[in-house]
């Protein structure tokens, strides 16, 4: 089931449209689960194999070799995965509780302010945030994580809010009626039912982070962006192609894994 696309206009009804789209796809006979589970990794493996063959076939000069050797590529891929994993972790840790907080009746009025901040975080170009951080705080891994988190908070926050808001009121009332406290209702009724929409937001943030992490190279945090930049400043096509293709492969692979997790964590009966 595809994730609702991030609606930059701030339209909270986006999730509703996406759910309707999903139903339509199912009616039309969407991709079978097997194809979804197996197809993507097979295609990605094929792309990696093709890239390998292409690079091996090139007569690499010394600059290209310095950028495209196995240890260097491994280092940059690992750095990139680390940046993505840590930033996504903090995005979840920050945005999900925040989303829960601003959907409670007592603190609902905070919602517009919180959303505004998250919106700003995503509107400012990432490279701008990175440069600001470099000037004010310094460079390195932590600063890159800060910029990545600021940029990706919005989809997770909004989807958490939408997910919690779209839970059927009658179910909540039923829970209260059964004697559950507000907290029990949140944890046992609202959250589980909001999980599909929340996961979709997390999946979006994950893929956004992979792309934005390519900019981390400009403040000394490495990643696949370093390879891309080397290809750019030295005008070496094999290097540029390798960096770009690997970044895309990582994004698609992580999206695929997130899709599987989404399928597994979806509560039965939704």
């Amino acid at each position, binding site marked *: 089931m595809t994730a609702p696309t991030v609606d930059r206009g701030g339209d909270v009804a986006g999730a509703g449209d996406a759910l309707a789209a999903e139903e339509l796809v199912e009616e039309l006979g969407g991709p079978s689960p097997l194809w979804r589970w197996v197809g993507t990794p097979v295609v990605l493996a094929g792309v990696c194999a093709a890239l390998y063959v292409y690079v091996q076939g090139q007569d690499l000069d010394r600059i290209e070799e310095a950028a495209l050797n196995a240890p260097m590529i491994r280092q940059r891929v690992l750095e990139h995965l680390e940046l993505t994993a840590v930033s996504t972790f*903090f995005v979840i840790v920050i945005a999900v509780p925040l989303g829960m907080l601003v959907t409670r009746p007592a603190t609902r009025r905070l919602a517009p302010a919180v959303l505004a901040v998250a919106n700003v975080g995503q509107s400012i170009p990432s490279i701008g945030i990175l440069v600001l951080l470099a000037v004010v705080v310094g460079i390195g891994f932590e600063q890159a994580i800060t910029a990545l988190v600021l940029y990706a908070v919005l989809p997770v926050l909004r989807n958490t809010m939408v997910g919690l808001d779209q839970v059927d009121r009658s179910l909540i009332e039923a829970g209260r009626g059964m004697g559950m406290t507000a907290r029990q209702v949140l944890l046992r009724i609202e959250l589980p039912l909001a999980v599909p929409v929340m996961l979709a937001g997390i999946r979006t943030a994950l893929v956004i982070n992979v792309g934005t992490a390519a900019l981390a190279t400009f403040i000394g945090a490495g990643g696949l962006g370093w390879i891309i930049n080397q290809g750019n*400043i030295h005008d070496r096509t094999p290097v540029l192609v390798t960096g770009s293709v690997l970044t895309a492969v990582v994004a698609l692979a992580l999206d695929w894994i997130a899709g599987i997790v989404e399928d597994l964590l979806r509560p039965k009966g939704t």
Partner: protein
Amino acid sequence: MHTTRRLTSGLAALSAAALLAAGCGDGGGDAADVSICVGGEFATRPDGLPGLEEAYDFELPADAVTALDEDALVYSEVDAGNCTFGSIFATDGRVGALGLTVLEDDEGFFPPFNGSLTVRADVLEANPELEELFAPISEVLDDETMVELNAQVDVEGEDPEDVARAWLDENSDLVEDVDLSGASFTVGSKEFTEQLILGHLTMLVLEEAGADVRDRTGLVGSTTVREALLSGDIDMYWEYLGTGWVTYLDNTEAIPDVDEQYEALQAADEANGVAWLPPAPFNNTYAIAMTEERADELGISTISEMAELVREEG
């Protein structure tokens, strides 16, 4: 009250996250002895780190090298103590301003990087006065002058074009009485300070001689500018002898003598349709620098000594 409890649990989560983020990784100013910050091109160019490691017989472990794609950051990082060594440019204004000490290249690895105006051969043929026009100016551009001009931009925050214009006003007697009216030239340059100053200086001189000038300065990356020259998108730009010899013409051995290097370069690049005007005295060579305190602490003043340190502790 429920609201308070909600708020506190929310805040607790946020603070925990902030603490975790702060705890991850090391703080600044405490670099390992063997740690180097390198600029974007230095990291992979054969006249940069890979060649240096080969010539001095040392190998830096991957986690000791911080690749900073912004060259400017190397200076601030070394100064802040986040890396012990840094790859710098010899005529950069910040070296003196920050009190950095430059390690001696005792094996003579780095080729001469004297600046020279490279012009498309066909453009030079059509306008031979260019050589006459730029010779007296090129002659007086020595290390001291370039450091001073660069410092005006990088340390004092002046605009490169203003700096170029001010210098030209002071040295207007150097501009030969050459008439280039009717001719038009496109001048390029790389993106860093010295290149911008030289690029604007070139344009101002050409304009004084009556030519029409198109500004293509500030192109990012050595290769980009070089390609622009070869394809004719620009007519001329200031390049460095070593960069031409090692990076563009792909030679493995540098020629330490400036005149010999220049002659060899001139002869070889004819085939590419590029002419090099006689080089200026300034040598903006790659160099390795460290703060004076660290240099004293570790007792290092040459690159060989740095190599030894890497072999021992790397």
